[in-house]
């Protein structure tokens, strides 16, 4: 059973320096005209942690992930990722940090007129990986996600669940230090969900910090990790699964 700690102050975990991957201090995000997507969020995620973000639809999970990967800027507050204040980063430095962050977006952001292999390769190409290494990695990932036969299919032709797996594959392809995953199993059946979680667990074991936003109770209720629940843009609870 999870141990629920209402509105826990995350300062205590912040004290371990060099070990914090994400740190948010009093972060708010307001959209025009008056939508408070996030208000006063403070928490930290340690390096190597597997962290779950849950909450009802519209609670602000995606907004939070967007802030972490600098797709969006907070209205207020401070966000540090791997020791960098991500809102002050620009140009090359921002690009290099982003190469170390893999994101599986909720709307996938796949290039529908490119092949599956090209879509997965894109994150590796950007950091100038060798073509042979890229080919090898793409094949490995497709095999793990049971999509080997889709290697040369156009991404736009795939089924929704297949696309979701491609988006995930792209996010982990470049072996990033931080992986943000938004609703990775929304279009997947139980067996495929298992495979996806296996892949993520393996990445986590290899040292990557992973933040997963999800509704799927089956994936966050087992294992020993922290789960943060958002409600109307506020932290409702931050607890550690005891199992």
């Amino acid at each position, binding site marked *: 059973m999870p141990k629920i700690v209402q509105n826990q102050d995350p300062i205590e975990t912040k004290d371990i320096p060099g070990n914090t991957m994400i740190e948010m201090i009093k972060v708010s995000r307001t959209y025009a005209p008056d939508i408070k997507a996030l208000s006063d969020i403070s928490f930290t995620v340690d390096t190597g942690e597997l962290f779950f973000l849950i909450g009802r639809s519209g609670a602000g999970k995606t907004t939070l992930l967007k802030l972490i990967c600098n797709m969006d800027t907070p209205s207020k507050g401070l966000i540090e990722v791997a020791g960098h204040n991500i809102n002050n980063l620009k140009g090359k430095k921002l690009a290099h940090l982003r190469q170390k962050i893999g994101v599986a977006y909720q709307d996938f952001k796949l290039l529908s007129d490119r092949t599956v292999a090209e879509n997965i390769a*894109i994150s590796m190409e*950007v950091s100038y990986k060798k073509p042979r290494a890229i080919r090898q990695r793409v094949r490995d990932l497709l095999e793990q996600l049971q999509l080997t036969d889709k290697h040369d299919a156009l991404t736009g032709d795939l089924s929704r669940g297949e696309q979701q797996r491609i988006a995930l594959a792209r996010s982990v392809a470049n072996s990033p230090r931080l992986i943000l995953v938004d609703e990775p199993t929304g279009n997947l059946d139980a067996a495929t969900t298992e495979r996806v979680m296996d892949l993520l667990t393996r990445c986590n074991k290899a040292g990557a910090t992973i933040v997963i936003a999800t509704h799927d109770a089956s994936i966050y209720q087992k294992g020993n990790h922290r789960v943060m629940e958002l409600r109307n843009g506020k932290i409702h609870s931050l607890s550690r699964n005891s199992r």
Partner: protein
Amino acid sequence: MNFWFAVFRQAGRNLRQTWTSQFMTFLTVSLSVLIFAFFYLIYTNMIGAGDRLSDDLRLIVYLEDDPGPEMQEQLRRKINNFDKTESIQFISKSDAYERFAEQLGEDSDVLTDMPRDFLPASIEVVPLKSLRGYNQIKLFSEYLATLPGSEKVQYGQEWVERFYYFTRLITIVVLLSGTLLILTATFMVAYTIRLTIMGRHEELELLKLVGATNNYIRTPFLLEGTLQGLMGSIIGLSALYILFQWISLHFTGPGLINLFHFTFFPPMVIVSIILGSIGLCTIGSFTSIQKFLKI
């Protein structure tokens, strides 16, 4: 050179995957260059023809009497003081008689009974080419009429006036349509490039999110822009050259040879046009893409 490898791979992919819109842009650039160069060519040839037509412009000052050598010197000085000239020629009464006889040709026997000085003496003034505005000519002729001994100044007023108005009209028409067209062409090229890039904004955004540097994203597009500018201008100019050859071939009639001596652009102008086209396309791509990189 990982960077350049990536850039060329990306540019190659773009060309392969979006070749229809690339081709449209290329066509637009070609047509624009063709139209621009066409009008520029007409303009330069028109100016050349104007120059050549006004070659035979001369003002004739009829004098009361044959001027003596001293008087000639004085008149020459006075004229040159007022305005620089190409040449000043004095024609005595007997010179005029001989010219007239020559003009009459076979019929010159009608002059046998005439005194050799029945035609007046005159000065033929050819003004400098650079000073041939219609108003300047008029001013000049008014001045010449005040010279001592001058009776009347003739320069085919009507003809000169017509000619000047006509060239001015044509120049204005060519300049106006040229401006109009160049505006249209620039607008079109810019719009086409913008739409092409807009059509790929998903890819551009993804590249940014995935950690591509601005140069990584931008360079392939600039390369494409450069290529389109280069190819477009070369094709446009080639088409114009073929057109030019065709027109030249159909206007080798004897009547126009001395009026229109068609010339194509000198190499310098060709190079400038190509460079200009490349510059415009590259700048167009640059500004269009810059919007995405700033978001």
